[in-house]
């Protein structure tokens, strides 16, 4: 449920099909995920899950898999 929601946010912000999103999708590995869209992604995740992600986690959110791990720390269950 939450995984699907997160996948949807990634697809929306990065403008890529959901099928392209796996745990291994990493920052800078596709032109759509650059520093600008990274910050848009953080903002969309904060909105969607009602979180306020810390600086360290902003920096560490380097893949879709990592995003799930980080969100788990904020009480989002996957």
């Amino acid at each position, binding site marked *: 449920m939450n995984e699907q929601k997160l996948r949807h946010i990634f697809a929306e*912000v990065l*403008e890529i099909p959901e099928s392209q999103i796996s745990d291994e999708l990493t*920052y800078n590995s596709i032109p759509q995920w*650059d*520093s*600008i*869209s*990274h*910050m*848009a992604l*953080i*903002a969309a995740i904060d909105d969607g899950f009602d979180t306020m992600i810390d*600086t360290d986690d*902003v*920096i*560490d959110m*380097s893949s879709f898999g990592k995003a799930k791990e980080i969100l788990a720390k904020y009480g989002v269950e996957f």
Partner: protein
Amino acid sequence: MTLRPSAFLFGSNQVEALAIYLAALRTGHAVFLYDAAANLPFAEQLIELYRPDWIAGPTVYLDQIKGAMDEVCHLTEYSLSGRTIVREHPVYHDLAVLLTTSGTTGSPKLVRLSYDNLQTNASSISQYLNLNDSERAITTLPFFYSYGLSVVNSHLNVRASLILNNHSVVTRDFWELFKQQEATSFAGVPYTYQMLKRMKFAQMDLPSMRYMTQAGGRLDPSLVADFANAAAGKGWRFYVMYGQTEATARISYIPSELIQSKMGSIGKAIPDGELDLDPETQELIYKGPNVMLGYAKSEEDLFQGDLLNGVLRTGDIASKDVDAFFYVKGRLKRFAKIFGLRVNLDELEQHLEQEIGSELSCIEEGERLVLYYTTAESAEAIRERMSSVFHIHHSGYRLELIDELPRTASGKKGLSPFAGA
């Protein structure tokens, strides 16, 4: 006969690229700097148009460039490829660097900068930033654009160090490098500061840090205040600056100790420069030894000398206070800054209108664009072009469907009903 060679250099902030740039200057070549990773087909267009005598760049890209040349030499990850170009005239003797003006939007118009332009602007900058050889600037912007290049030139001018970096400030790699290499400063465009704000920059522990600069567009005054306060609390200096590629880089700055009292200003003229207003139009006019030779639109323009004689009409409308600090009020021409990229709104409108075959109007709203369009089915095509041609992320604009674009009496598109201010 090659009377004076010109070169095309692309790549990123890597030591090879910097070495090639400096070697080109030392040997008196005129070098085009281009961030080709952004748009290779456009790099090919430029090469075809300006016919450089040699091309250098990362080997992986150079191999893909059409018309690559006979002789190739390799320098670790970079390669140089040369040929002999026959020209009717020599490339102008003082031409040093050519830079694009419009980010990645694909206008082949280049700014022609002289050796004297580079030297004088670097000297002015190192003077007002009070730089010495103990500085260690970490690069945050590609040196293929004027702001990034000015950081490189002003630091090398005083034999200071550069920490060559290509990572964004939102990555761990960046901050690890910053701390490990004890960076003393960085440069940022407005978007850099927006990201840093979200990352709670004011709470970061950066013992080696001395100063930071901001240029490349107007930074929201509330953010200027935030960073000025953060800097004051930490004993750092924060400089808000203004400039144009046409002036090599810098035109004006706010001395860091005055930042609180001159909020919203672009500052005063840099050392050796002068600022004034056109008495009729209030256009900001800059005079200084760093004003470009002129533009280039074709190979023939490389033969041209100085066409501006040190006087630059900035295209910005401004006012002046009693201390000779200037405040930009608006623009004569229609440019917007989106994520640090300069976007020519007229060009953008024309391109999109051609693409969708119906009318469209574009205005700047805060730090975003609003595109007013009249045919619902065009939305997808507009989004596609905004991404593939203009490289503007969709969070940088919004689309608004309307029945009809407003017109002025003369039949031109009238934007005032939307402009708000």
